[in-house]
């Protein structure tokens, strides 16, 4: 007499409601906007008010920061859905493009007003290292997209345990 095979494990999940996810995403907006828009714009405005030429345009920084925040928020809200992977890819790709835009302007020449001094600072290598971060996130987004395409909802018990 053969013993019956054990029943397959049953994993449950509890996904927060859309309203709850939107509320949390809205709360996340505050620190994200401060970090990605407020802080860089304040730094650039400070430089400009001290007659120091800007390495990046304030409009570009504001726009890029707003797009990153919007994509990050959308990604958070869409996490339980199959849109999460593509949104992760879009978000990481945009951050990569933004960092590349900064890399192209990463030699900063500062002519000290009223003096004969000129200081030149290059942070290309650091920005290239920083590009590893969205590159890894982009890879994670691709893997998640593949996973969602192969077995939909497979990751939900691990992302939203009860």
């Amino acid at each position, binding site marked *: 007499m053969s013993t019956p095979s054990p029943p397959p494990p049953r*994993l449950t*999940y509890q996904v927060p409601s859309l309203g709850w996810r939107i509320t949390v995403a809205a709360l996340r907006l505050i620190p994200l906007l401060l970090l990605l828009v407020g802080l860089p714009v304040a730094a650039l405005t400070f430089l400009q008010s001290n007659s120091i030429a800007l390495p990046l345009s304030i409009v570009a920084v504001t726009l890029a920061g707003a797009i990153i925040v919007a994509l990050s928020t959308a990604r958070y809200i869409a996490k339980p859905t199959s849109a999460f992977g593509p949104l992760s890819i879009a978000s990481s790709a945009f951050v990569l493009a933004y960092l590349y835009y900064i890399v192209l302007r990463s030699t900063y020449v500062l002519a000290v007003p009223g003096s004969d001094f000129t200081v030149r600072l*290059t942070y290309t290598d*650091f920005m290239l*290292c920083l590009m590893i971060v969205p590159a890894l996130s982009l890879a994670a987004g691709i893997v998640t997209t593949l996973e969602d395409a192969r077995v939909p909802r*497979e990751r939900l018990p691990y992302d939203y345990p009860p």
Partner: protein
Amino acid sequence: MSGQIYPSSRRPPPLYRLARALRRASLFVLVLLILFAATVVYSTVEIRQSPPQVGSFSVEFQTNGTLALTSTLTLSNPGFYPIQAFTLDVRVVNGTGVFLGAFGLGPTELGGSASNVYPIALYLPVSETGPGASLLVDSQYLALSVWGNATFGYLFPAGLSIENNRHWGAPFSNLAYSVSNLTLNGTLPVTIAFQNAASFTDAGTLQLAVLSAAGIVCGGATWTVQVDPGQQFLETQPVTLSPGCSPLGGTLTGAYVTPSFTVPLPSEAIK
């Protein structure tokens, strides 16, 4: 929304684990880079509080016919990271843009939490025919260009350039020879005048030769000088001329002589 699925095991599936590992690696790299950037900024602030010190310059004649400007550069690096590939280049041109001399330092490395003293030596040739001859007799403004390059925190190359005009005080400023009428006993009174506008004392002898139009030495005289910075020198000596040697149309040539070197001074036609 809630639900349940029946996976083959309780362990997260491989794709989920891979995505999670990539996200964690991304976060880890970000934290690492933020910490690194923070320590670099801290180290930079520390360096800014102990800026490079340039010692006082001393100027003296060298045996190889140059004027040497020597000093020291003290670099302190109280930060965590080394200052790598540090180079310093100095270039001097005179008021008309003629290159006079250059100085180069490095590439060298200064470790974290360390300081070092580097010698600075700028040699300006002052030969009679060279571009630096005017440094002996003309006080002037020299254009000084300084370039410094270094890499800090392994990833941050930085450069500094300074363009500056510095006043140069000539040791025989406004040097002038003048001759009076030839006396009956065959001597020629010659007067030398100059001001020592340099920062060092002119101490030695001034040797003067009276040459005929054909370049023959008709006679000479020697002055012992001890002229402190800022002092004027004005003395006349009779030069006994060789019989039959006429100074008319000739030249007066001088030299500044000390036990260790001889510096030729500009010639002047006898009028």
